[in-house]
């Protein structure tokens, strides 16, 4: 999967979970500050990504922006 493809998937899941427009889910957007996610939202976003992409996402503390999520998912997909 390319970064662009991962971003499309992340946008879909984040927009659905946080009830925001996909346009707001940009690479620079901070999940908690800009998109107003709380810790349970982040759990659920990680869970959805795990289920859809068949990967395991462990720590979520260091994930701040959408770009962080995309990079983390890319790393786990590449390691599969």
């Amino acid at each position: 999967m390319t970064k662009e493809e991962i971003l499309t998937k992340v946008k879909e899941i984040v927009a659905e979970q946080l009830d925001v427009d996909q346009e707001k889910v940009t690479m620079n957007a901070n999940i908690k500050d800009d998109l107003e996610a709380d810790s349970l939202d982040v759990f659920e976003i990680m869970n959805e990504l795990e289920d859809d992409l068949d990967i395991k996402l462990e720590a979520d503390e260091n994930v701040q922006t959408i770009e962080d999520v995309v990079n983390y998912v890319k790393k786990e997909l590449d390691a599969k």
Partner: protein
Amino acid sequence: MAAIKIAASAHYVPEKKVTNDDLSQLMDTSDEWISSRTGIHQRHISCGENTADLCTKVAQELLKKSRLTADQLDLIIVATMSPDCYTPATAAIVQGNIQAVNAAAFDVSAACSGFVYALTTAKAMMGLPSYQRVMVIGGEVLSKVIDWTDRTTAVLFGDGAAGVVLENSETTSSKFLSEDLETYGDLADRLQAGSTAPLQKFPANSPHHFEAFKMNGRDVYTFATHKVPLSIETAVKRSGLELEQVDWFILHQANSRIISQIAKRLKQPLAKFPMNIAEYGNTSGASVPLLFDELAEAGQIKAGQIIVLSGFGGGLTVGTQVIKY
């Protein structure tokens, strides 16, 4: 052929209410933080009453409502993760308090799934001729095992007890249809309360070790939102029914957002998932019968309806019962 009916249900919670604002005076938290993440607005906290005291109040109410005398009971099962002591069982103390002299009594330890595990145990034992009238109670005084300095867990829990009387009946149209119990012992360390430790040498030079409640929030959240829907699907399938035929999903009241996710994963309307977590918080083994009793009292649960009871928590465990009321 005889079938099991729920002859009565009852609940009791301690008088003292502690609001989110009360907690924000004690620790760095707020009503907004707690209610938006959990759906909890307040909880009842016991001052002076232990788990067996709460369960005894429920047992007395159950006798009154079912019009049974204590000596007619054959069995008392209490589901609890906060018993008065290692031994005797909380159920034995209740048996003594209400003088149910003919009843065997023991506890079931399966944390927040405990009531459903206990119901399943009761259902199985009611296939034996000696156990025709059974009291099943879930009761907790969690406030005594909580670390009141840990704001990530202290805000979640409350105290309370609730239960049912089950009777084998030749005439009832109600029925316990099917169940599913699952245990994930490899995740045992994700949610623990009251851990003890062996002596490191003899004679011991340190006091007995006792640890308060601790939880890995994300792992438990992931477990609940994935495994509970699976258990419900399995149990409902075993009953020969479809999810659409279920009238009420009475789930353990751990967190309103976990319940919403479970409803979403089951593709069932949230309106079929009643909640009372706002008033009581998470009362572990008491939460399923506490919600059941409130709905029964309000007349919302009607004869002939299909009800799913599902608990999930420490073990990690999940348990589901499908009942025709």
